């Protein structure tokens, strides 16, 4: 076999991987267009989102335990207050003991900084809000979840239900991309959670683009029927990077 032929085969194989392949535990999301829920007059209607990989499920207690073992500065007793508030990993028994928490449950009570550090330690990153929302908008059978009645019903059901005291394990039904648990388990951090220029109330801490705020918020919205997305935007804009919340976790992403 000639070298040229071998190279050709190798190149074809690589090209195939680039299209189809995702790391184990991750799903490839193809090039897409994200249509932001909130838009000012000057904002783009459509944001191109180049292909990326997304963890098929949120990071679990078990995985996070392995991380803090490797990186003691992220253990509960070691973490700097700047990077995580007092409730950081509060549901664990101690630094390295999950206690009542199960290894397969999504990890929660983690700050944005901790989520970012975990992702970096795995050679990954947090997804952007556009990436996350794009993946979360996909239904079980259709890329556009709005066209998937069964999916819509499931999502509405979750957002209408308070978080259970004990979180279920990760591993819900996969969406069309093969990603699970984007709805139904926990809220999730995004890398630019602090890009949401909408506040749920009239705090007035964001002087620009007033049309985005207060009651006017919904006027700029693309789809006023997408209540869950409103809730997510409201929730994100209320967060600070050091906050830890009992039903807020994360998953990682990766540029191909």
């Amino acid at each position: 076999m000639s070298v040229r032929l071998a190279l050709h085969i190798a190149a074809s194989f690589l090209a195939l991987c680039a299209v189809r392949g995702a790391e184990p535990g991750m799903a490839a999301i193809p090039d897409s267009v994200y249509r932001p829920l909130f838009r000012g007059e000057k904002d783009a209607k459509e944001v191109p989102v180049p292909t990326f990989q997304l963890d098929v499920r949120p990071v679990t207690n078990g995985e996070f335990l392995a991380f803090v073992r490797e990186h003691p500065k992220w253990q509960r007793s070691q973490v700097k207050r700047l990077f995580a508030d007092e409730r950081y990993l509060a549901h664990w028994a101690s630094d390295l003991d999950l206690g009542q928490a199960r290894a397969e449950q999504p990890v929660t009570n983690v700050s944005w900084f901790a989520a970012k550090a975990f992702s970096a330690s795995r050679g990954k990153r947090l997804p952007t809000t556009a990436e996350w929302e794009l993946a979360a908008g996909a239904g079980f059978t259709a890329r556009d979840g709005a066209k998937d009645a069964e999916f819509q019903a499931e999502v509405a059901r979750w957002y209408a239900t308070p978080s259970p005291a004990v979180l279920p394990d990760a591993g819900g039904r996969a969406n069309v991309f093969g990603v699970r648990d984007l709805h139904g388990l926990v809220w999730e951090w995004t890398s630019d959670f602090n890009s949401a220029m909408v506040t749920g109330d009239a705090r007035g801490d964001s002087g620009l683009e007033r049309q985005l705020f207060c009651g006017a918020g919904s006027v700029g919205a693309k789809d006023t029927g997408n209540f869950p997305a409103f809730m997510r935007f409201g929730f994100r804009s209320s967060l600070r990077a050091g906050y830890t919340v009992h039903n807020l976790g994360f998953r990682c992403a990766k540029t191909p």
Partner: protein
Amino acid sequence: MKTLLAFLLPCVLLAAEPLPPCCRPALAAGQPTDKSLYLLDSTWTSDVIRKIKLGVLRGRPQIVALFFTQCEYACPILVEELKGIERKLAPEVLGKVDFLLVSIDSKRDTPAALAAFREKRQLTRERWTLLRGEADDVRELAALLGVNYTEDARGQFAHSNLITLLNADGEVAFQHTGLKQDPAPLIAAIEKAAGGAQR
């Protein structure tokens, strides 16, 4: 050696002019406190000297705002407000606090753009530090300050207008929200923080 020279040379060349806060020698102090922003390890570039860590600002309270030089709406007002505060401070307070502007426009705000902005807005060198950083590092600093921002299709950033006072240890001591608010509480906080200045 070469890098050391490259680092020192601007300092030497600029010795005739007053050094901006970021170019002063760092305080030889212990670890930053648990809530100090100086725990951040990110590297920043100023309009005057190449690379710094925020920790070099330790020892003196900093009045911090995020901005970008191409800003058409709020930033000119924000910077004017900061300058108004500078004018209102008593000389003994003024000698103990610095002003820090950090750009959120990583793409366009080069050190040269920052220098031009300093010139245009007449921000004195001995008191004002102008910094740019990588997008991720800016996102992180903004997250710590509680500043939200997003870029629109025209490259303008919508952002929270927030002035943060860091004490000498780099902890958030006071935050002043919104434009055209009464600056009295902020000024009172600055006067108090100036008492803790270590240089």
